[in-house]
């Protein structure tokens, strides 16, 4: 055998090999205690933070694999919302007469909604099935499970960046000014990210427990679009219903994004309500995820 121990030594590397355990371990506290979890044990965010490199690698993997062996590559990130925009313009703008409700050319208006909605819908779609799709990981190796649905959402961010470029192109193409308030766009992209993580995490856990959600999720997203101001402006909702309507976590991101890009006044009331709803949903989702997480390996 040509295998010499030195060529594959476990000793090389940046940390010294623990040939002896830390002093005073006898009787010392264990590093990890495994026992049946009873009651509330927190959201586990510290452990999540410690595993952030894995989150990065999983996002990187998803992005890399998604565009490998595709002819158009990242162009898909532009193509999909662009086609949706054309359809919206024809169906809602022309046939539905929505074009008269808005101040800017309808395609620009529609795209400013599709931008974050498209990200949200794709991210939630990926995220909701992510645990099932990663069952081989869940049943073979331990890491904070929350990484999986969050990584699935994160992998949509590159697409969002690319499709934002088309937004700029549209503004310039229609001769509309890029407003200084557009610097707030990343903030609303951030709240959309929070909403997507909340909904995606919740659905991913529900999908493992009840496979019915695999079928339900798609339908839910489809319906959700119609109760979000994607194809129509927020103003189209009567005043007295508007705050109730804003409990929808995607109202804030879409309305805020549109205002920042098209230079309209920010509807701060609905944005505040929607963002609060989004954060509450995220906390609820993480709590539920945490409570069923320990059973994943047994039922996935």
């Amino acid at each position, binding site marked *: 055998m040509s295998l010499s121990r030195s*060529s594959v030594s*476990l000793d090389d590397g940046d940390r010294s090999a623990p040939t002896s355990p830390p002093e005073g371990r006898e009787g010392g506290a264990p590093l990890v205690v495994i026992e049946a979890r009873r009651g509330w044990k927190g959201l586990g965010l510290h452990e999540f933070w410690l595993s952030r490199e894995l989150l990065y690698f*999983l996002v990187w993997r998803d992005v890399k694999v998604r565009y490998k062996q595709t002819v158009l590559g990242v162009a898909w990130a532009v193509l999909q919302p662009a086609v949706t925009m054309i359809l919206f313009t024809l169906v809602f703008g022309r046939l539905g007469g929505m074009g008269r409700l808005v101040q800017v050319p309808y395609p620009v208006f529609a795209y400013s909604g599709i931008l974050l909605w498209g990200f949200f819908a794709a991210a939630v779609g990926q995220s909701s099935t992510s645990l099932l799709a990663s069952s081989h990981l869940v049943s073979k190796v331990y890491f904070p499970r929350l990484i999986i649905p969050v990584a699935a959402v994160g992998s949509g961010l590159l697409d969002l960046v690319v499709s934002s470029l088309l937004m700029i192109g549209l503004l310039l193409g229609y001769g509309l000014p890029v407003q200084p308030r557009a610097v707030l766009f990343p903030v609303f992209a951030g709240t959309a990210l929070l909403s997507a993580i909340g909904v995606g995490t919740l659905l991913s856990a529900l999908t493992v427990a009840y496979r019915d959600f695999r079928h339900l999720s798609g339908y839910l997203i489809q319906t959700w679009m119609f109760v979000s101001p994607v194809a129509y402006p927020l103003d189209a909702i009567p005043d007295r219903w508007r705050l109730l309507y804003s409990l929808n976590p995607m109202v804030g991101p879409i309305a805020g994004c549109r205002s920042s890009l098209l230079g309209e006044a920010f509807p701060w009331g609905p944005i505040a309500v929607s963002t609060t709803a989004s954060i509450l949903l995220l906390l609820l989702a993480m709590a539920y995820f945490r409570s069923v997480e320990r059973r994943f390996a047994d039922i996935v």
Partner: protein
Amino acid sequence: MAAPMIRAEGVSKKYRIGARETTYTTLRDSIMAMAKAPLRRLRQLSGRDEGSPLIWALEDISFEVRQGEAVAIIGRNGAGKSTLLKVLARITEPTHGRVELFGRVGSLLEVGTGFHPELTGRENIFLNGAILGMRRAELRSKFDAIVDFAEIGRFLDTPVKHYSSGMFVRLAFAVAAHIDPDILLVDEVLAVGDAAFQKRCLGKMDDVARQGRTVLYVSHHMPSVTRLCRRGILLEQGRVRMDGDIFQVTGHYLKSDLGTSAERRWHDPATAPGDAVARLKSVRVLCDGCVSDVMDIRRPVTVEMEYWNLKPGAVLVSGFSFLNDQGVHLFVSCDWFGDQGNEAPKLPGVYRSRCVVPGNLFAEGQVRVVAEVSTGHPVYQIHFLEYDSAAFQVIDSGEPGSVRGRWGRPIPGVVRPALEWETSRIGSGEAA
């Protein structure tokens, strides 16, 4: 005395067998069951359904492993070995009990967990390393060592879907071997890879143990278990049956299994299995003339029994059936089969029947021998039919001459005959 690294106290794990197991007989039943199913599922998930059957995969397991120990967990399929490893690896939670781990744990429950076929070898090293819990900086510094160990050289930037199975396994093990944990949990990893690579994997694990780390190794493969570990824990139906010196434990395991081994004798014709016509005296399994628990898959296996014929003029047929450890009946053979059938009446006395099973026929794993002597004519009547009269382990180390050869993946099936193969190009494939 070295410090404890793993301390398990009263670990139990209960599984609920789902409704999947029940079979619906009539349409009405199945419709009713369908109507009730969502309700039952809800009850199950909320933990209130006490109706469906429970299985204790682990029951009250306690043990302590100290620093630098290499411990083998052995037991039959379903004894709870893998469940125990999953609990220690934090993949599944115990129902009761507590485990304390005094160090960083690396678990190797499968080679290549999280490998993505579309990604290159280089990319998979980083991805897989991160999944196994390595930091990026750590991975970078070990990268060259991993590539060296895997011997993938110029294929480093090729998607792993184009790798041969051997290369794939080598790369996957190379990453895992560099996790550098204080406690290493390994599950049957050595069931893959060719012989040379298996030896290297064993060597690597040996090194890990010798450097003062702690290794917990689950395997069916007795030769590697005894080579690697000094101590064994035998699980039986979810309980610790035996914990101690590896040779005692493996010896017990190979015999245990319902008290069978490669040789068994009955000394008293009054109590031996059988009746007034014939009684079983002994059964043994030999390889190259020696009684052996462990058989090289390439070598013929000689199975012989001795029995007392107590009745003058009995027309006896003796035969063996072979079962695998799942209880699947592999085949039966008796001394009346073929052209040499010995159907003559027999004088009283002690008889020996021997048959030779050719090499490269049994699959890997345990084989249980059923010995039978019956009257074959005019009426068929069984005198004894002794299940588990002997048992042996078939091992395919992948050396030249075995079916495995350089094939690195599991080989399913209850037999593993060596067959002749020929594949050749017979035309261009274009329409004439």
